[in-house]
């Protein structure tokens, strides 16, 4: 790693003097245009993303009942101490977020890639399959939650009726969303149902844009289908691969709406705790604790930034090296 960084550093230094400072003449109109073009999005970003985020970090060091500003008082790291040492749903939530990420990366993502690869081979009814698999993505995750709530309902649900396991007094009664050992997986199936289509469409778009001559060249060189895909197509689609990895990580960390629907709106059902739900539980509610909720949100922000930044920095490095 250190070596890579060094090489990159040298390259950057070596590259710098080569660039000659160019003098540009910009008219007042141009400058104004540029200022507006950069300024407006920048202001929007600051006002709607960074200001709330930083305010939230600030609030996370306070205790506040959410009524008026006079009731805020500074408690330092107390909220964080409570979260890490004395908040039973916190560690399960972390665990579930990790399971969510690993599962999404291992099951629906490869499944989506596989489907995209198959659909790209110009099989019959390709459009029909494409639409059918993509359809769940068009629905909002909350709606997906409602659909699966009907499927999983223990008494009247589709699944239990089909399996004949809908009798509460019977021997085999499956409480898909209530059983803490089962409900996370039930929700993950619902989430995968949607995520597969999402990954498929991203990957399919990528596959369509791959230069066909690459395949031909590979075929002439005598590569079989698997080799062509793994050695030629996948590397050629690097931008798409990065997109998919980032999307997968992000979707796992911000997983919220579907579980919120499926676990009911007080959220913290055993087996389905997620960081995003804990944040909501503490910030909205009959007696909210914005300080505590903000501390949880800050934890999630740090985790998200760490995951994404690490990945992207590594990628930029490889990029420069190449």
């Amino acid at each position, binding site marked *: 790693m250190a070596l890579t960084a060094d090489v990159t550093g040298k390259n950057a230094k070596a590259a710098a003097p080569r660039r000659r400072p160019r003098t540009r003449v910009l008219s007042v109109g141009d400058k104004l245009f540029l200022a507006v073009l950069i300024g407006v999005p920048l202001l929007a*970003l600051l006002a709607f*993303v960074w200001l*709330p*985020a930083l305010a*939230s970090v600030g609030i996370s060091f306070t205790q506040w*009942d*959410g*009524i*008026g500003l006079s009731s805020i008082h500074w408690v330092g790291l107390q909220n964080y101490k*409570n979260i890490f040492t*004395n*908040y*039973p*749903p916190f560690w399960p939530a972390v665990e579930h977020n990790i399971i969510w990420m690993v599962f999404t990366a291992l099951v629906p993502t490869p499944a989506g890639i596989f489907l995209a690869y198959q659909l790209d081979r110009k099989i019959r009814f390709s459009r029909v399959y494409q639409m059918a698999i993509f359809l769940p993505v068009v629905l909002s995750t909350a709606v997906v939650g409602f659909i699966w709530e009907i499927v*999983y309902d*223990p*008494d009247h649900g589709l699944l239990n009726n089909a399996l004949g396991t809908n009798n*509460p*007094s019977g021997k085999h*009664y499956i*409480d898909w969303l*209530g*059983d*803490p050992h089962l409900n996370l997986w039930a929700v993950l199936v619902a989430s995968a149902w949607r995520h597969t289509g999402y990954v498929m469409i991203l990957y399919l778009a*990528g596959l369509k*844009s791959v230069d066909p001559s690459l395949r031909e060249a590979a075929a002439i060189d005598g590569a079989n289908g698997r080799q062509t895909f793994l050695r030629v197509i996948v590397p050629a689609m*690097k*931008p798409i691969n*990065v997109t998919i990895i*980032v999307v997968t990580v*992000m979707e796992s*960390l*911000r997983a*919220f709406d579907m579980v919120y629907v499926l*676990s*009911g*709106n*007080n959220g*913290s*059902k*055993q087996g389905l705790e997620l960081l*995003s739900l804990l*944040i909501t*539980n503490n*910030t*909205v*509610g*009959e*007696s*909210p*604790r914005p300080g505590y909720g903000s501390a949880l*949100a800050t934890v*999630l*922000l740090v985790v*998200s*930034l760490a995951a*994404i*930044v690490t990945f*992207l920095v590594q990628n930029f490095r490889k*990029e420069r090296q190449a």
Partner: protein
Amino acid sequence: MSRGPITDRRTLLRGAIGGAGLLLASPALAACGKSSASASTGSGGGGSQVTFGSDGSDPTPRKAYGALTSAYTAASGMQVRTNTLDHNTFAQQITAYLQGTPEDVVTWFAGYRMQFFAQKNLLHPIDDVWSQIGGGFSDAAKKLSLGLDGKAYFVPLYNYPWGVFYRKSVFAAKGYQPAADWDSFVALCGQMKKDGLSPLAAGFGGGDSWTNLGTFDYLNLRINGYDFHMQLMGGKVAWSDPRLNAVMDHWRQLSPYLEAGASGRKWQDAAQSVFDKKSGMTVTGLFMGQAITDETLRDDMDFFAFPAIDPTHGQDAVEAPTDGFVLSAKAKHVDAGKKMLEWIGTSAAETVYANVDPSNVGASTKADTSKYNALQQKSAQMIASAKYITQFGDRDSDPGFISAVVEPGFAQWLASPDDGTSTLKKIESQRSQYFTS
């Protein structure tokens, strides 16, 4: 895809950070719910109007509040603009709602939380209203309407008791008898199980884990009495207090008789399971009647008081949550709002409401009971004869503590009931975070 990969990644990075940042802007979530509020009924007519924020989103209460407001319009010529919000969402967002742009007259509950909002100056005192309507209420109802500063903030509309509900025809067919004490109650559960019924219908899935508090409250009231229960609710007694061990122990005795799959079921479906004669009984409130769709069923429903456990306390306490109205401090039509509350405080309003929603009992002593069905009459009697009236776990205590700590704790415990000491210890360890002052 024709753009350079680096540009792509920068866009992505920004998107990623933005995504994480947006999560932090959680007040936005509160706003979401509000915007989904349903359309108003009746168009506001300039000065002679009052706005009404209602949490009656279930079909029956919705119709009943609709009847109430149109009756008021007919009686006073005042236009009422109603904004109905989802029942659970309303409770969750009440703090933001009262600080934002609330309606004038708002549905709310008596008890701890009403007093808290009054203390925070989010409610408008309505002593002048009470000087008009006070004669129609009992001292107990009046006491429930007072804030900690001794001023009135609340006008009760109705209350409803919690008890053990069952179908008469099921009891008659199997020869079951209502249980008055603990041993016969457990024996009755056992018999039902033998007969192939699920003895106690239960549903605390979705957002309904509050329903478990009914059983807990009653067990605690029967075993440790009213005073201890209120101290516990007020955060003045430790949840690790040894007196609670008996409560958990009794609850554990009931756990094998709870309907399977309770943690994935909503209370309405638990009620349905009793209606369908799949379950024998259920511990719930009279509001269970709101889930009745076939009116002939109503005559077949009956209930008995939660069985006595310790004879010193007997059945002296009834859990009877009181619903009513407050005037928000930010009300735009204060005088019109007070007039409406005055009218609501008369027994006429309650009659209008009860005609549509017969799953409550009027709070006014002058309420017309002649049209009450058998359940309502029994309820009124039960509440009137009670020595102590409690409001319900999440109304007698800090609702944040109850919903974030106690309810998940109990739901988790019910999945594999043990002696409960670790659950109680967990609850106790978080108590001080909520009851600070």
